[in-house]
């Protein structure tokens, strides 16, 4: 009878074994879905970076979020894509340990597949520690019900090791591995992503661990394998519904977001040719009008949608890509590395190349691109502002990255919400997010000890380990 019962208790509708590639692709797509949607990007990333502004129910642009938003991000990333990546790695490691491959080539592909999964993990863990500060890392994804929080410093040190190891483990001659929605299993493309990401990670700690940053940056640079053109970009190429761009899906029923006056004003002033890609002219006037960032809900709700510039079709189409990392960022990283003396070369040249790469990414014609790039002067004495501004413009739609770079480079531009901040005691643009309420209630002891690392309280103006200076805010007069 037990035999029958054992069989009866096997779910006929769910497999107990899958290809690791099914999990990898699901993670790549799922992590992006949860990073790019109207909540994580719309009401958080794109608000905090002020690429967009809310034109109805504006409380998130005034930094008041509902508790479920933090919970959902945290849960979707950890228990969703990150867990799937870990499961893919575990499945491959079992096979590698048992050496149960048909051929050495197949084994090499599996090793490459694991490297890709590790790189994806590093990419997400960096984003998450940049958002929250200390987070569960070493004990995360193991089933441990109350994983401890690791300091941001220890996470960063390990991310650099992981990226180096991943790069080293990739066999460029191995056949393409399966389940790769980014690069179709192309080993060289992953080598480039590993090194580009290692540059991003290294540079972020340049102010607090200069030696480590320099060593890692130079090592990645010296491989010569990193993003050099937009064909290298780490993207999720969305298709048609139901696998369409999440912001495209949101736009079908709601029009809550317009392009912010912070970025529209900046681009209008510089006559930036990307403006007509980033935004649509306001329907009522035919001109570009940025939605005032952080306007009181009662005023904003009364404003017709057509009165302000809506996001451009390039970012709202069903096939508009979701971006993990693009080549323009690498150009700006190289410029900064030269500036900081990590590598040799011309900072101004990389700076200009960054602008051109960004123009190319958004489909701006060469002539307009060059004219604009020529007009931008790289100010070595005030390089954080020069680099920061252009990098921020190039990071359009990568809301989280735009905000994180503002926190690190302190390049100004961003304004306080016009009608104030709705969080009592918060007087500036947040420099981190509060932990989800679920962590307070479900992982309380570890949550409490994590707080000691960020000044004792779960504040939105606490600065993470690498954030050494207070962010600069433009005092804008309405």
């Amino acid at each position, binding site marked *: 009878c037990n035999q029958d019962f054992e069989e009866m208790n096997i779910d006929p*509708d769910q497999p107990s074994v899958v290809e690791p590639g099914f999990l990898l692709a699901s993670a790549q797509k799922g992590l992006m879905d949860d990073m790019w949607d109207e909540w994580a990007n719309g009401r958080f990333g794109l608000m905090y970076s002020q690429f967009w502004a809310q034109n109805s129910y504006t409380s998130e642009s005034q930094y008041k979020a509902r508790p479920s938003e933090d919970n959902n991000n945290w849960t979707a990333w950890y*228990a969703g894509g990150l867990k799937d990546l870990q499961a893919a790695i575990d499945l491959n490691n079992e096979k590698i340990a048992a050496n149960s491959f048909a051929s050495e080539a197949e084994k090499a592909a599996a090793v490459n597949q694991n490297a890709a999964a590790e790189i994806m993990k590093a990419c997400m863990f960096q984003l998450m520690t940049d958002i929250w500060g200390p987070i569960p890392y070493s004990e995360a994804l193991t089933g441990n019900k109350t994983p401890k929080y690791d300091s941001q410093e220890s996470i960063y040190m390990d991310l650099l090791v992981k990226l180096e190891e991943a790069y080293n483990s990739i066999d460029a001659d191995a056949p393409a591995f399966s389940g790769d929605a980014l690069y179709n299993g192309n080993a060289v493309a992953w080598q480039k992503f590993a090194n580009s990401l290692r540059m991003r990670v290294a540079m972020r700690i340049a102010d607090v661990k200069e030696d480590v940053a320099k060593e890692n940056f130079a090592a990645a640079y010296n491989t010569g394998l990193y993003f050099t053109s937009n064909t290298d970009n780490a993207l999720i190429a969305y298709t048609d519904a*139901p696998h369409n761009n999440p912001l495209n899906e949101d736009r079908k029923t709601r029009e809550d977001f317009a392009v912010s006056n912070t970025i529209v004003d900046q681009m209008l002033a510089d006559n930036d040719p990307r403006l007509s890609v980033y935004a649509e002219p306001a329907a009522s006037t035919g001109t570009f009008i940025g939605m005032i960032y952080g306007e009181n809900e009662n005023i904003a709700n009364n404003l017709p949608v057509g009165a302000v510039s809506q996001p451009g079709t390039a970012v709202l189409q069903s096939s508009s890509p979701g971006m993990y990392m693009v080549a323009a960022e690498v150009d700006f990283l190289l410029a900064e590395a030269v500036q900081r003396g990590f590598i040799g070369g011309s900072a101004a040249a990389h700076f200009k190349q960054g602008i051109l790469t960004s123009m190319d990414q958004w489909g701006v014609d060469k002539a307009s691109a060059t004219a604009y790039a020529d007009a931008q002067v790289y100010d070595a004495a005030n390089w954080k502002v020069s680099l920061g501004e252009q990098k921020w413009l190039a990071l359009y739609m990568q809301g989280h990255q735009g905000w994180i770079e503002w926190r690190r480079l302190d390049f100004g531009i961003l304004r306080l919400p016009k009608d104030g901040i709705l969080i009592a005691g918060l007087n500036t643009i947040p420099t981190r997010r509060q932990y989800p309420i679920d962590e307070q209630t*479900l992982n309380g002891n570890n949550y409490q000890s994590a707080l000691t690392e960020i000044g004792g309280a779960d504040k939105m103006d606490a600065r993470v380990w690498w954030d050494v200076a207070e962010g600069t805010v433009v005092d804008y007069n309405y």
Partner: protein
Amino acid sequence: QERTVSGVVTDNGEPLPGVTVILKGTSKGTITGLDGDFKLAVPGPESILEFRFVGYKTKEVAVGNQSALQVPLEVDAEELEEVVVTALGVSRDERSLGYAMQAVGGDELSEVKSTNVVSGLAGKVSGVQINSSSTMGGSSRILIRGANSINGNNQPLFVVDGVPLDNSNFTSSNQERGAGGYDYGNAAQDINPDDIASMSVLKGAAAAALYGSRAANGVIIITTKSGKGRKGIGVSINAGVTFDNILRLPDYQNSYGGGGAGAFGSATDANGNPYASYAVDESWGPKLDGTPARQWYSFDEWHPDYGQATAWEAHPNNVKDFFETGVTTNTNVALSGGNDVSNFRLSYTNMDINGVMPNSEMTRHTVSFNGSTKLTDKFTVSTVANYVSSKALGRPGTGYDGGNVMQQFNQWGQRQWDNEQMKQYKNPDGSQRTWNRRGYDDGRPKYADNPYWTRYENYQDDDRERFFGNFALNYKINENFSVSGKVMTDFYTDSRRERIAVGSVDISKYSEDVRFVKENNYEAMLRYDKTFDSEFSVNAFVGGNIRKQSYKRNYGTTVNGLSVAGLYTLSNSNSPAQLLDDGYTKQVNSAFASTSFGYRNTYFLDATMRVDQSSTLPTDNNTYFYPSVTGSFVFSELEGLNNSSILSFGKLRAGFAEVGNDTDPYNILTTYSADTRGSFGNFPLYTVPNTLNNVDLKPETTRSFEVGVDSRFLNDRIGLDVTYYRNTTFDQILDIATSAASGYSRQYINAGEMLNHGLELMLYGTPVQTASGFKWDVTVNWAKNMNEVVELYTDPETGKEITNLRLANAPFAVSVNAFKGESYGQIVGTGYVYDDNGNKVVNEDGTYKVTDGVVNLGSSLAKWTGGINNTFSYKGISLRTLLDVRYGGKVFSTTNMWGKYSGIMEETAANGVRENGLIVEGVNEDGTPNTTVIDANTHFFANGGYTIAEADVYDASYVKLKELALSYKLPNKLVSNYGINNVTFSVVGRNLAILYSELPHLDPEVTASAGNIQGIEGAQVPSTRSIGFNVKFDF
């Protein structure tokens, strides 16, 4: 010496057929015929005859020298039959039971009928708490002696004529937590009140040990009417009509209309008339002072008011007028008959509802057959068969969702709209017209569909076809031994279809959800009954049961909208339709045994044991054994008490029981799930489920103990029944919410210990009884349950402890949790900051200070519950009232939160707050009283539940006039000449009035669903008050 006595049994002079007449101390007996007549051979004058009949007090008559007896029986108002049906359908003398059990007569349930038989129990049984939803055909949740399981099923087992009945409701957790969706109701509502002869509520695990695991939360045993005791054929008819209207709507403000910024904006039409801000779904707009303004309906060229400005004024009854008068008709025709060998009852019931929401209707047809025949003296076969076919269309959407029209009436909306204008929800070209235009020049809906569009275009429909019944054989081997075999089945197909029309706010959609649910039970039993020397009695049985359950679901939905408007098929999908199938099979094998000993009809002892083997547990740990021992002592039989004029009956009872429990299928092995959207191009997508299964699960156990006293005084004029119980469930199988950083948001574990202990009290009596026939009976039920989560989980390896479990998050502000050391169902959210003197602390800007993190805002569980049932009768007239009382327990109200935030509720425009602002009661940081004036808008935003959850946590206590029934039974002598008997007219009312409540604007009783997640109010659909008329007669 043996001779025959004959006689007639009557009720108020009317003959009573079907009364059991037993020669006391023997098994000899007979049943009265159609004219109440009987004949029985008796051994001598010392013989005593016992007359028993359901709903009447048992009577003993000494035969003496009489040969023709006149035996009037008295109705037992308390419905406390001496013979009760207990576990596995065994009829027992109530005095022998060592545990608490309360019975409700069928008439009590069918007189004031609720469409869901579960809600008909409210207030009638102590220790039983009912929460009914307010939606047509919606769920009723029943909890007996509190919740035993932290997040498993806490509903009792329903057993109809021995058939365990599925009571699933298949609603999503989103629906339970108030986040939207339809409430399709719990499946026990398929039980037809007209067919119920009696209902017994076995409250503790002791009473239930023989039903197995599912009985740990108590058992509701329903016996349907049969033709037993009838001679010849009779027909009875019961017909009624009930009218429903809304019991309570919020108190709305009617001074300000839609908008966000007070006065009209500067934009005007060519004639200088202002527009209102129709894109804003709030009511912080211009004063409703009659100013000519462009109404939302003045922009359509075909409309008579096109281009015109009309008065900007209030329509205070707009929401009220939206609802219709609901009409429910119920007709039951039953044919029953019998003779010495066979009996049967065949009944047909039709229930037809037109709901209070526009375009809502429901029908239910029930055919039920009940028959038994003696093939030989020793061999009896019987069968029960029920077929139920129900259909509904236009169930109200629930929760915080656009599909629920209450969202725009009570949470996000404009107050000034005119219901007559709203009714024209379509343009001549079929497109939607709504008040919530994207702009004055853009008529597409912004957030809210026109409520009539929601009701008439975005409707759902569903149907369920169900069969349940049994087939039983009984063979009497000799006087003491008998064997029986029984096959029971319950299966149904439940189909649900949901639509969103092209042109709605949401992307158009059609989905179909079909479930096939089946449970079969096969049972065999050997019984032994014997009385030795008329002093010592033994009833024993052993048996076995095999339970097989299966479930299959097929769900399909269109993706990315419908291609052809108005065509609702899965293939009419812009992107390929999405499909989902899941299901399970499960089996439990059981063996059980029971023995009961009685001595001198005074001392009783019962012992039972059961062993289960379940397919859902790991095979090395899937068999579990559980025993029970109960006893009772009828102390009123003692020498010295047995002739007491004060104490007429007294019994002490005590019991101990354990019940083992398994888990749901497929919680053991790890599997992967496919992305419901299908492959991404060429990439199949599979994920690790968010819940971690556990290969080491073991059975969970509930241990319960109870003692009670049942006493009656002054010739049964007063009775008091008191029970104390203590239930502990440990090793619970929980899918606990864990830090998602673990890689899983939930994990299965064996952990936790939950304690429920409490007191139940039933006091009943007849305060007034006059010779003229006037009688006042009253029954008071009261119960207090105390719940404590004693232990949650300590990791055996790390020693780390989990002291808090999250059951659910509300859509916005709060979660419902279980904390170690506190009661289940704690509402958790942000709170006020209080100073040492208990004053609320105010920020510099005059708004309340909020706690940094979340705090405990109280338990959603009631402190005590009760009911008061009064019956006044005089000759054929009877008036019955039922009060239902709940004291304590909290609820978080999303309706209050948004209704104030958006300026809809009365208090947002009362006492001049909009004109003058207000100063909230509290102190500044330095302890001085707050004197800062804030405007109303700021107040209802910053000081409301969205910011401070505590602001919208309310006490859920209430007193309700639940039922009122006035009935008149015509004397049979008036009508029997026409061949009609027992003609009864009644006027009945249900849910008539809220006599006490602390929850503003809403009905405090209403629940969103029958699930565990309670204490969160989403966007309550208003409950209804029903008044009905009923006529009943036999011929």
